[in-house]
């Protein structure tokens, strides 16, 4: 997210927060996986600002987001709108915890945009994927957290 944080440390921090927040928000245990989400996937995306110039997405099988919505809303029957709302709220909470962790590491008070939801695979314009962390949610469900950096930074070797 910033050159002040080594990529390895950033990956480890993001991985821990994803697993903790997913468990706390929806009671879903994510474990590290190898397989990316399948054809029926959704993406939630936010851009960071105020000190950090990168963005994060989470892509997951629709079935996993459905289970997340069922758990967060405590309803067995959820609509497409419920799924979208729950996915955005989940990622909002997740990114808040990431911002808090960044603050503890750098004393920079990052803020982030309101999450946007996309059916299918979404990649923000002018950004490139720096790294991806894959997860399995059990029940043949997969998710991946994607850290994006601006294309201009990639050309500079990732430095700001």
């Amino acid at each position, binding site marked *: 997210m910033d050159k002040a944080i080594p990529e390895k440390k950033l990956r480890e921090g993001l991985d821990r927060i994803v697993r903790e927040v997913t468990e706390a928000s929806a009671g879903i245990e994510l474990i590290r996986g190898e397989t990316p989400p399948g054809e029926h996937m959704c993406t939630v995306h936010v851009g960071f600002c105020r000190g950090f110039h990168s963005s994060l997405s989470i892509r997951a099988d629709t079935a996993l987001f459905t289970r997340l919505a069922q758990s*967060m809303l405590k309803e067995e029957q959820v609509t497409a709108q419920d799924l979208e709302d729950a996915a955005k709220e989940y990622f*909002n*909470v997740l990114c808040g915890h990431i911002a*808090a962790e960044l603050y503890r590491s750098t004393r920079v008070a990052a803020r982030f945009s309101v999450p946007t939801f996309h059916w299918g695979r979404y990649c923000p314009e002018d950004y490139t994927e720096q790294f991806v962390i894959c997860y399995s949610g059990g029940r043949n469900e997969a998710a991946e957290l994607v850290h994006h950096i601006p294309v201009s930074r990639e050309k500079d070797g990732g430095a700001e």
Partner: protein
Amino acid sequence: MAKRVMVVDDSRVQEVQVRKLLEGTDYEVAHYCRSGEDALAVYDVVKPDVVTMDIIMPGMDGLETAQAILEEYPEAKIVMVSSLAYDDTFDEAKAIGAKGFIDKPFDKEKLLAALDAALAGD
């Protein structure tokens, strides 16, 4: 009589969660606002005992909204609800006069403790 809570959050999920957590307690969700602008417009009509206010929202964010409400209604009891749980945000919330802070995700115990404390003036 139940104490009336106004929930301000762009996420409907949050309103549903708060409503369910408050079932069977001394509190009830009296009104739900999806934006800071909406909250400012209806605060005086709803006259809630306490407000739960998200921070990251489109348009006016929760800190701006809380500040605007408190400028007009200094007696308002506002509890910020966010996952941006770190010193910088706590300080901003405190400086504008918020009565508490709840870190997302939260459970019933944490929610009730924060609402009770806000109304008790802690």
